[in-house]
Each structure stands twice: as structure tokens, then as C-alpha cells.
């Protein structure tokens, strides 16, 4: 009965999803000749050493770094576009150094765009303040851990993070949301009833998720946390695994193309790994878990990596087998960095002196992180480069993993702090 219900539900979801997928808007821009398009900047532009990448929906524009554009800006772009087909449902257009003109428009204060713009501007201010307090790459690292900011990170440090498989630590994701929630709940229960405190926490989640740019991992974590809260309010038992599936379904129905977003895939795979693989590893590899200090981090990373491995290999064609060790060496620092980071960000608006003082206290931790990542990132033999593999391997891998899990009698984990 139960199984039938679940499969019926799943089938219904699949139909709905496919329907939504066929309904996604298609864009057509003539190729090879200069075209003028008008659009709105849909993501905060990515700044590199000497250029910026601006996104207007399905259009990617590579432009000079100055003048910088901002989320929500309305721009007119004149140049040649190239089409790039990613899959039958998703294609994007690229343009290199076209002429861009900023269009002035009247500001209406109450709109979603402007609310998000306000939050992103606040984030921009926090970024500028923190960058004045600490040297590079420490300041970029702190911003990455707290707000998931990756732009303007020194190129070589970014490469080291990528090579050591620690890039996921500078993404705003589950752990950040858990911290925000914990912080708000702890403060608001002092003077509010529990259900109002939960409302404050949920509002906090919305603000934080929008502030970090509403990318898939943060949205996932935010939705999950919200659902768990609603479950608590309704007095229902909380089963994170169920909520993970439900979150995925909601996100896919709202934005079908997100299925092809690597951040979305990685985030869900890693969380699933923590929920289902981690308890299994805890029993099977209990010896590893007993290593002092490092043990816990090793198992957590191993679980997430085993679940996300095919996605990494299919998309990036490389994998660092030392990554669980590097992660275990820096993971215990992350909650500390977040707490310090949130406080420094808040303080910097009131007293730059106190913010500076506190940033010196966080400096040794950041430097430890930097040194570890730079050391392991500098070793050339830790990476497996294998070129991009076919996605059928990934399907096969997941089938085997699933069978393995079912045989071991799959018990979901109650902890959802990490990821």
C-alpha cells in the first residue's frame, strides 16, 4: 500500500516535471552577425583578475572588469553571440567583449528585484569592509566561508581549493543556514514564544539565502530547514531524508532547468551521502572514525565524496584522493570561522576598530586553513586527471551504490549540520 502510494506520487511528479520542462522558455539569438539585445543582469557578475562575467538569463557576457555591473541592472548589449548547446532543453549564448550600455530606469521600491538588490548591496558593503581588515587570501577565504563569495578570490588560491577538493567549503550551503537559524533562534527565544521565534528564523533564512545570491545549495538548505520547522510546528516527526526528496521536487517544479545545474546536483548528492552513507560508514569503518580529531571529518567527507564522485568526474574529469584528509584537517575550523565571520561582518558596520581587533583573532585560523590548502594543493601527485567520462558511468555507479545501500539496510541519519 505504502509502496504503491510512493510510486504513484513519484509518477505524478515525473509527469508534472516533464510538463514543466517542455514549458521552459526558449531563446533565439541570431549568430555570427552583430545583434542588439536588452536585458537585466540576473546574477551578481563574477569578477576575475582582469575581466567580469555578466549573466543575463541564458546569455553569458565576458567584459572588461571596469565599469562593474550589478545584479538587477538593465543593460543594452550590442555584439556577436555564439550559441552553445548544453542539452536538448538548455542552451546558452556567449558574447566576448561586446559594447554594453547601462539603461537608466525608474526605481520602484517594492519589488522582488529591488529587495534582492538591497541585500546584495549590503553584501557588497560587508565584502568591502572585510577586505579592508585582512590580507589576501585570508579575507577572501573568510568571505567565502561566511557568504559564499567566490569572486575576486586570488586565482592561485582558488586553484588550490579546487585541487584539494575544498571548494565546497567556500559555498554558502547547509552549514551556513544551520548557523543562521541557530543564532536567530537562540536570540529570539529570549523574548518571543517559540512559534514566533521560528517565524523569525524562517525570515532570517529567506534574507540570508537571497543575500548569498540564491544559488542552488543555499536554496536547498533553506527550503529543507524551513520544511523541518513547519514539521515541528505541526508536531510531526522529522525525517530529513523525506524532506530532502521533497525539497528537490519543489525546486525542480519551480525551476526545471536547475536539474542541470552542477551546484544543485552536488548539493543534493552530498546531502544524500551524509544522510544515508554516513551512518553506514560509521559502523563499517568505525576504526577510521576513532582517529582523534580527524576521524569525524574524514568519515563525513568520505560519505559526501562517495556520493558526489560521479558528478565531479563527469563534469570536471578530476578528483583528488587526498581530499578527505585535507577536509578533515580544516573542517573543525568551519563553525568557528562562521561565528567569527558573522560577528565581524555585523561589527564592521558599527566600529571598525572592534572589527579589526576580532579579525586578528580569526587570522590564525584562516592562516592555518590557507597553509593546509596551499601545501596539499602544491603537491602534483594528489590529483587524478582522467578526462571527462561518460554519464552512463555515473548511472552505473549510482545503481551499484543503491544496491549496496539497500543490502546494508539503509538507515537515515538524524544529523544534518554538515554539507
Amino acid at each position, binding site marked *: 500500500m505504502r509502496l504503491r502510494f510512493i510510486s504513484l506520487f513519484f509518477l505524478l511528479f515525473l509527469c508534472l516535471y516533464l510538463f514543466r520542462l517542455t514549458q521552459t522558455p526558449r531563446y533565439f539569438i541570431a549568430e555570427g552577425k552583430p545583434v542588439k539585445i536588452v536585458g537585466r543582469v540576473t546574477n551578481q557578475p563574477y569578477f576575475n583578475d582582469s575581466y567580469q562575467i555578466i549573466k543575463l538569463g541564458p546569455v553569458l557576457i565576458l567584459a*572588461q572588469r571596469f565599469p*562593474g555591473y550589478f545584479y538587477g541592472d538593465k543593460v543594452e548589449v550590442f555584439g556577436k553571440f555564439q550559441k552553445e548547446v548544453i542539452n536538448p532543453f538548455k542552451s546558452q549564448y556567449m558574447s566576448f567583449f561586446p559594447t554594453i550600455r547601462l539603461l537608466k530606469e525608474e526605481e520602484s521600491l517594492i519589488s522582488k528585484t529591488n529587495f534582492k538588490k538591497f541585500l546584495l548591496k549590503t553584501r557588497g558593503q560587508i565584502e568591502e569592509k572585510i577586505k*579592508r581588515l585582512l590580507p*589576501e*587570501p585570508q579575507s577572501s577565504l573568510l568571505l567565502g566561508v561566511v557568504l559564499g563569495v567566490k569572486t575576486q578570490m586570488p586565482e592561485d588560491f582558488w586553484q588550490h581549493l579546487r585541487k584539494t577538493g575544498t571548494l565546497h567549503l567556500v559555498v554558502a550551503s547547509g552549514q551556513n543556514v544551520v*548557523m543562521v537559524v541557530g543564532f536567530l533562534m537562540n536570540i529570539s527565544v529570549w523574548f518571543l514564544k517559540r512559534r514566533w521565534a521560528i517565524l523569525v528564523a524562517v525570515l532570517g533564512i529567506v534574507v540570508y539565502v537571497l543575500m548569498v545570491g540564491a544559488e542552488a545549495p543555499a536554496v536547498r538548505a533553506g527550503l529543507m530547514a524551513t520544511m523541518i520547522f513547519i514539521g515541528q510546528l505541526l508536531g510531526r516527526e522529522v525525517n530529513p531524508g523525506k524532506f530532502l526528496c521533497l525539497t528537490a521536487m519543489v525546486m525542480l517544479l519551480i525551476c526545471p532547468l536547475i536539474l542541470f545545474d552542477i551546484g544543485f546536483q552536488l548539493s543534493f548528492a552530498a546531502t544524500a551521502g551524509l544522510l544515508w552513507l554516513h551512518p553506514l560508514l560509521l559502523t563499517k569503518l568505525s576504526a577510521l572514525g576513532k582517529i582523534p580529531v580527524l576521524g569525524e571529518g574524514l568519515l563525513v567527507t568520505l560519505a559526501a565524496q562517495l556520493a558526489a564522485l560521479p558528478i565531479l568526474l563527469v563534469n570536471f574529469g578530476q578528483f583528488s584522493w587526498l581530499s578527505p584528509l585535507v577536509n578533515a584537517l580544516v573542517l*573543525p575550523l568551519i563553525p568557528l570561522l562562521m561565528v567569527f565571520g558573522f560577528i565581524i561582518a555585523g561589527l564592521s558596520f558599527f566600529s571598525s576598530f572592534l572589527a579589526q581587533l576580532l579579525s*586578528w583573532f580569526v587570522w590564525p585560523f584562516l592562516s592555518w586553513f590557507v597553509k593546509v590548502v596551499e601545501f596539499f594543493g602544491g603537491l602534483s601527485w594528489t590529483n587524478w586527471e582522467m578526462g571527462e567520462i561518460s554519464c552512463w558511468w555515473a548511472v552505473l555507479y549510482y545503481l551499484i551504490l543503491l544496491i549496496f545501500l539497500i543490502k546494508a539496510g539503509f538507515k537515515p541519519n538524524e544529523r544534518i549540520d554538515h554539507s
Partner: protein
Amino acid sequence: MKELTILKKPLFWLLLILILLWGAVFSLPDKQLHLVFCDVGQGDAILISYSQVQILIDGGPDNKILSCLSKNMPFWDRKIEIVVLTHPEEDHFGGLIDVFKRYNVRYFVANSLVNDRASFWQFYRLALAEKASFYSPKAGDKIRIGALEFLVLWPEKDFLKTDNFNDSSVVLKLVYGDFEALFTGDISEKVEKLLDLPARLAAKRAGGVEILKVAHHGSKFSTSEEFLRKIKPKLAIISVGKNRFGHPTPEVLERLNQAGVKVLRTDQEGNIEIVSNGWGWYNSP
């Protein structure tokens, strides 16, 4: 988050403060002059530091300068006393945008020329917002800070021209005891001839300079034989990266070789540091 319970332990804070104090002690500057030619790709960026005073000449094209500054300044020092922009071209001011955004700058030294690019106006706005004292140098001026002295050798007053930024470069000679270094910006042979070298160089002593920053990344229109004969550098540094101009040119490398000058290049060595106590000096790498 059980990792956070550590914050409640006094021992944790005690240890942290100890680590910080030792970290600060170990990053205390020595009483020596440090010249660091930063590897910023195609462009110039030279950090001069003595005790707690930092002087930055140009910032390279982009934010690569920041990691060089982090490596060569104590972590608690967020102040650069003097920033010099030799001339308003992107491979010299580009990185200064990030420097102004992140560091407190006391004095900003640059000639009054402006470049009409979007990035320059961005830089200009930031430099104004920073409230650094602005100073436009002319040949014959002296800038003294702590134990260091800079002689301004260029530009002459009526030589500021917007159609030739390179030849309007600020040329500085650093004097610290017996140690001298010449920073030539992007000047060409024409200006090299016009520099009032004998009078101002001989003022201190007849020997040549220790360090020459080769002008214009090793362009063949700079660093003439005659100039090298006049200033007799012991070591020449070429600040250069991947470029489409053929810098450094074989002609300049040959002239330096003929003059018996040792050459180091940032594209081969990375950051190049020179340390001096006022009479002797050494370089690494």
C-alpha cells in the same frame, strides 16, 4: 555545533592570544630596507618597505598585486604610507584600484595626467575617496620618509603630455645610506638623455646605482648603452609578463649583457626581493 563549545573555555582564548602575540612578534619588520619587485604579469609593481613604512610604486594590471602585498607586509599592517603612480596606463594603475579599496593610503604621488578609460575613472574616484594627500612631483623635488630619501628626477614641468604618457613617467631615485636604486617607469631613450643624472647622481658619490628597474618592461626604445654607461647599475630588474610587444627585447638584453649587468626577470623568478642595510645588499632568489 559542538565545535563551538571550545569558545567557552578560557584556555582556548589564552592560547589564541599567545599565538597572536608570537605571530605579531615574528612578523615584526627588521631594520633593513626591502625592495620587492612583484610578479604581476605584464606591468610594474614595486614594494619598498623599511620598518613599518611601505611605499608602493605602481600596482600592475590587476589584483595579483594583493598576494604580493600580503606576503611582504605584516598581517596587522593595513596602511601603505606612499603610493606612487608613475603614469596613468593600465599596466601600472590597474592593480592600484584594489590597493586603494583595501589599504589605507597616506600619500598618493602621481602626475596630473588623466587617461580616458573607464577603469581609470574608477581608480580616480577611489583615490579621491581615500582622502590621501595628493602630490604631483617635479624634477628636483625630494621625498623623505623615515631613513629613506627619494629624489624626483622626472618629469620636468613642461614635459607633461597626454599624447605620451610613457615619457611623462615619474622617475625616482631611492637613496638609503650608500644604497641607491633607480625606478624609471616607462621612459624612453629620449627622456633618459634629458634626465639630469650627473649633477644629482654625483651629488652623493661617483659610483653608479646598485639597482636599476629597467624602463618599459625591456622595450628596445629604452635603456640605451649611453644611459647604462652613465648610471652603472650592478643589478637590473625587468618587470615583465606574457605580452604581445616582445618585451623584454633581445636588444635590451644584449645591451645589459654588454654592459656586464646582472639581469633578473619577474616572469622567470617570480617576486624578486632585494635587502639592504645601507651599504651591503643581497637579492633573493
